[in-house]
């Protein structure tokens, strides 16, 4: 006596961005294994990857337009929920992915790394991130977390010539596995407390039932917060960040900092916003503390760092703090701010890492400030762009960085979170120090210019596109922010 399996209905359009990326990734692996080593497969693989991303992007574009007039699409047995929020962050992820991919092409050749697997892993990781942005179930969130993380472990350790790369991979792996175990425990406890892992199901259950005993649920919420806090690099779960960002190949660092952050925040915002809004009085103070700690530690610790990638790693921790402010307010303006911030941050940080990729010497291991001495004098455009990107991250007016911070602080002010607001603005001042320090170093002539031969290398077309795109977007958002803010606002609407 069996009941026939009732196949869940599938809205293929809704899940095709993920599928496109996964397909592209698999295709690259296939190309690699079929063609072996007969021709240089890198351009082909890159084109395949770009095609996948573009296809995914086209679908997201279509979805965005569809969803502006319709309800969110819930499909595959309620496990996927495609709404403007998901599409928005999906676009951020896809943007970060394509930029990182473009950035990688020349890098891979310079560093003589195996391109196909590398590209495939990026695409698969990005697919995981897209899954994350539309996940409507804790177990999907968990699996997406793994899908996006495991390729990153590999990619971080990808450069076998550098011990630092492998060390980064291992550290990331150990801590990632540790935190995802904690996350999973949180899933289990939540499941026990509510009887379901579906986000909407949890919300539904909690709104209809009053728990006599909230202990299990609270413990579950705490564990979930820890797991996602790790991914967004919030203090005190941040300690992997500097080491991994420094050790990983630079394009991967840029990908991690932009895309992973977006995906992790997608999960954080969605899980806590959809499943546990009723418990916000309980978890908001914890998020408050995470935000404050991230701001303080991220901004302060970077002050004495000498490795530029490490500085940016700490700064990404601080940025996570700002986004957490938006999250913490639990208002629509706060979400809007967090979304805009993620969007702008992606371009600011990829832009900065792009310059580091381009200006770095072969071996990708010379990123101390001393190696960048005089860069802006020797190569005004490249150095100037890095200065621009770091100043944008510092919140310079008329850059996207300022608008993003403005939105975040507005949200804090509107939500009467004056403490966060003041700590936030003061942390920005401290952070300005190390951003300026980078600028200052690049404007100070070195004793001599040893890397001159290397420095005078031309920027390849792919990286050039990345640099230009990032700079243009950061500037455009800063000068005419209206549309971007509007889109972010739309994306919060259906949450």
């Amino acid at each position, binding site marked *: *006596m*069996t009941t026939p*399996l009732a196949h869940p209905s599938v809205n293929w359009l809704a899940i095709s961005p993920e599928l496109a990326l996964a397909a592209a990734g698999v295709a690259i692996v296939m190309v690699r294994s079929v063609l072996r080593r007969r021709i240089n497969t890198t351009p082909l693989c890159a084109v395949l990857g770009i095609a996948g991303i573009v296809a995914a992007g086209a679908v997201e574009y279509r979805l965005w337009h569809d969803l502006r007039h319709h309800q969110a699409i819930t499909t595959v047995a309620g496990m*996927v929920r495609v709404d403007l929020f998901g599409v928005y962050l999906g676009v951020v992820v896809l943007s970060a992915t394509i930029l990182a991919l473009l950035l990688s092409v020349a890098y891979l050749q310079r560093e003589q790394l195996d391109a196909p697997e590398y590209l495939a892993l990026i695409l698969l990781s990005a697919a995981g991130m897209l899954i994350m942005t539309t996940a409507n179930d804790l177990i999907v969130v968990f699996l997406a977390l793994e899908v996006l993380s495991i390729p990153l472990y*590999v990619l971080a350790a990808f450069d076998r010539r550098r011990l*630092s790369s492998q060390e980064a991979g291992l550290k990331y792996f150990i801590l990632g596995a540790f935190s995802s175990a904690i996350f999973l425990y949180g899933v289990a406890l939540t499941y026990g407390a509510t009887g*379901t892992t579906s986000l909407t199901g949890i919300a539904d259950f909690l709104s209809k039932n009053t728990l006599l005993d909230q*202990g299990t649920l609270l413990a579950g919420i705490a564990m979930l917060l820890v797991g996602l806090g790790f991914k967004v690099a919030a203090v005190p779960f941040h300690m992997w960040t500097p080491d991994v960002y420094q050790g990983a190949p630079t394009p991967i660092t840029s990908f991690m900092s932009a895309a992973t952050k977006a995906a992790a925040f997608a999960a954080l915002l969605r899980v806590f916003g959809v499943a546990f809004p009723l418990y916000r009085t309980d978890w908001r103070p914890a998020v408050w503390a995470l935000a404050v700690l991230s701001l303080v530690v991220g901004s302060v610790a970077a002050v004495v760092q000498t490795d530029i990638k490490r500085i940016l790693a700490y700064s990404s921790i601080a940025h996570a703090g700002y986004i957490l402010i938006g999250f913490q307010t639990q208002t629509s303006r706060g979400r809007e701010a967090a979304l805009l911030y993620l969007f702008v941050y992606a371009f600011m940080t990829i832009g900065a890492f792009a310059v580091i990729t381009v200006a770095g010497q072969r071996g990708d291991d010379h990123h101390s400030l001393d190696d960048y001495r005089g860069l802006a004098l020797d190569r005004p455009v490249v150095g100037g762009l890095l200065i621009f990107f770091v100043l944008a991250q510092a919140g310079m007016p008329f850059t996207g960085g300022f608008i993003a911070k403005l939105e975040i602080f507005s949200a804090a002010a509107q939500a009467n979170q004056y403490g966060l607001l003041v700590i936030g603005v003061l942390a920005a001042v401290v952070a300005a120090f190390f951003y300026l320090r980078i600028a200052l170093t690049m404007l100070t002539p070195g004793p001599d210019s040893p890397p001159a031969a290397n420095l005078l290398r031309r920027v390849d077309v792919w990286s050039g596109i990345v640099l230009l795109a990032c700079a243009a977007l950061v500037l455009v958002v800063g000068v005419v922010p209206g549309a971007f803010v509007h889109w972010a606002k739309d994306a919060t609407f259906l949450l």
Partner: protein
Amino acid sequence: MTVVLFFLFAGLTLAGALGVVLARNPVHSALFLVLTLVSVAVLFLLQDAQLVAAVQIIVYAGAIVVLFLFVIMLLGVDRPDTFEEPLRFQRPVALSIGAIVLAEVLFLAGHRWATGARTARGIGVTGGAFGSNIQRVAHVLFTTFLWPFEITAMLLVIAVVGSVVLARRSGERPEPIDESTP
């Protein structure tokens, strides 16, 4: 009967776990891990989770632990570790955090663990006309959890590609220049 079995295997589980943590030789740790895994599988059986118990034995004990042992042997690290702790306060801190987290979870959850609605999605572990444990699990897995199931496929692809990339002898490129060690 279940009481006895529970306490027996619960004890074995914990003993195995402690063994994993405390054994100096990684090989011993792996063997203790097997003990724990098997004990957990028995506990699964005690809770009407036959399929999961079987898979636990097959996948974990059969595949994962073997993989561990394989790597241990491959790398030749089957020597006993020193138990010196170079990090100050690491052990007391770790122990106390472990104890505190345990206490906190127990305090929070200790009164009433499962507060969720029973048979939330219609198919229970027992009861109802859903057939055997395998059928029940399969039913849930291929309907409700179809999307996660597909994702696991992707995960496995990733694991394969990743392991290949990592484990590949760098034959096509010059041997890596070893860096100075700290």
